[in-house]
């Protein structure tokens, strides 16, 4: 803080074995309490390849304050895709299994996009190790009403997964394209790995992509029902970029209104000049906002 130099902290990659499947995590140290980062995206579908790498320099920034752990969801990066249908619960179950296997007993979950929806539903299961949840640019969890189709990523250049296709997607999602060059290699590598290829092949099967979309809609309905009833059982905040091409500020605010019905400690934050990846467009502001919430819990 106060312009202190950012120490380059080493993040180590580990592969856990969860029921015979590889589950990859990035962490800076062994610790039973951590800030845990869950990426988003639709497996094998989203035209940029997400994974633990998507958080970029924000991870090292958080690691200056305490332990961090970022994971690859199934079918992303180096975490094996599941055999059966892929649903939001696939994501929530994976996060749960990974955190238990990694020995995490207390955490602040920071989750992006579809990962945000999975994180909220996981928190509602009250697994006992979640202290707080921060939802970042998660149009997947926000109400859509009879909304207009979002076409931000409708016509990606082919072939999907290629450098040019992913550059196109990341630039369209961002307020500023400058950060894209820093993550593009990681995204291209992720697209070439077996889990992504398996997930992409699975989603190309008849009905698979539709089943995923249905699972997101049903998970969202379950979340709204829970928020009307007992509510999310831990402090929760919503962070949103002012220039998110995938979701409006109004959608972010409505997600907040829904969460704030029953959870007394709930914040909503707008990050100016940030798109759908605010932690990449504005990493310092993102770190500040997420950390202020943790500070207040201490």
């Amino acid at each position: 803080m106060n312009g202190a130099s950012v120490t380059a902290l080493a993040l180590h990659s580990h592969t856990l074995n969860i029921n015979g499947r590889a589950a990859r995590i990035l962490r800076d140290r062994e610790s039973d309490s951590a800030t845990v980062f869950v990426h988003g995206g639709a497996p094998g579908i989203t035209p940029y390849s997400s994974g633990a790498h998507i958080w970029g320099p924000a991870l090292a920034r958080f690691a200056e304050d305490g332990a961090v752990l970022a994971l690859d969801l199934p079918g992303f990066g180096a975490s094996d895709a599941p055999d059966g249908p892929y649903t939001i619960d696939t994501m929530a179950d994976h996060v749960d299994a990974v955190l238990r296997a990694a020995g995490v007993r207390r955490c602040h979950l920071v989750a992006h996009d579809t990962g945000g929806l999975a994180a909220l539903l996981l928190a509602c299961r009250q697994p006992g190790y979640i202290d707080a949840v921060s939802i970042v640019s998660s149009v997947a969890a926000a109400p859509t009403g009879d909304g207009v189709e979002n076409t931000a990523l409708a016509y990606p250049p082919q072939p999907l997964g290629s450098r040019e296709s992913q550059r196109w997607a990341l630039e369209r999602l961002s307020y500023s394209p400058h950060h894209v060059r820093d993550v593009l290699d990681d995204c291209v590598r992720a697209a070439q790995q077996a889990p992504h290829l398996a997930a992409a092949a699975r989603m190309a099967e008849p009905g698979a992509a539709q089943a995923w979309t249905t699972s997101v809609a049903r998970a969202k309905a379950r979340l709204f029902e829970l928020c009307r009833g007992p509510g999310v059982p831990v402090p929760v905040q919503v962070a949103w970029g002012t220039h998110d091409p995938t979701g409006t500020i109004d959608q972010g605010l409505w997600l907040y209104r829904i969460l704030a019905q029953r959870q007394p400690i709930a914040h909503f934050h707008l990050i100016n000049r940030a798109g759908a990846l605010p932690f990449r467009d504005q990493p310092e502001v993102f770190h500040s906002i997420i950390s202020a919430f943790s500070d207040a819990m201490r």
Partner: protein
Amino acid sequence: MREPDPLPASAAPRPAMPKGRWVDVAGVRTRYFEAGTGQPVVFIYGGNFGMADGASSAYTWNLNLQPLADAGYRAIAFDKLGQGETGNPARDQDYTMQAVVDHAAAFLRALDLPPAHLVGHSRGGYAATRLTLQHHDAVRTLTIVNSGTLSPGVGTNEVVLCNPPHPRGSREAVRWVYENYSHDPGVVTEEWIDAVMGILSLDKYRHTVQKMAGEGLAERVFLPELAQQKGQTLRWLDEGRLQRPVQIVWGYNDRTAVLERGMELFRMVARHQHDAQFHVINESGHFPFREHPAQFNALLARFFALQPAQ
């Protein structure tokens, strides 16, 4: 299941106000309080002189001064012109917002402060913004809290708080006003009411009530001048003249300065100010820094720490 707020205002240990001090500000004896060392953080509370059913004073910030001092800042709260224990405007034509802003700017000079982090609430949020627009060199960052006065939209104080159902200026009327400002009436403690009643009972304060209500300076001088300069202030914001890092913090459940007022204000400043931030705190009315001090203080400290060293 609900988790209790780690520091609900009604149960938290209440940091005592530091010992009060006095400074002469362009001939006006001015009361202030400070704690800690480091970059100055100057808190500007809301309201104005001559209000009969409520009276903010530096005490309003008693849950924020020591925590900000503990976070490494020189936290300062002063009594505005004609409010708290500070002296009154000398002439009738000084019962204006501009006189309040001029006094606040002169206070910063009197203490010989380096550029300060200003935190302004409600009408104090307006004053802090006007001060920034007129004295950029005095200001490091600006934090605006639930300021319907600054927002371009319509505030609803006069609706929500009109004619308390108790005798004017009574303890019951004061309590009713602050309870209606708040999300949780439980945060309106006896100590808070004591602080307000203490100011209302001062001869010098009663003089301002006589001026504003009795002699009609509120309608004749204060409100027209505020309306006129607000047009200019909003034009300046629209023109991008703020030019200091700004964050807007809003209590979600404020019925007097509703959330939409904050959103409008944020849109206005964010157009020009790349580092603008907007934060909403749940289960909070008009005074988020009193209803959820730990959450509010953490947002302040993190925002200040984002600024590069000077």
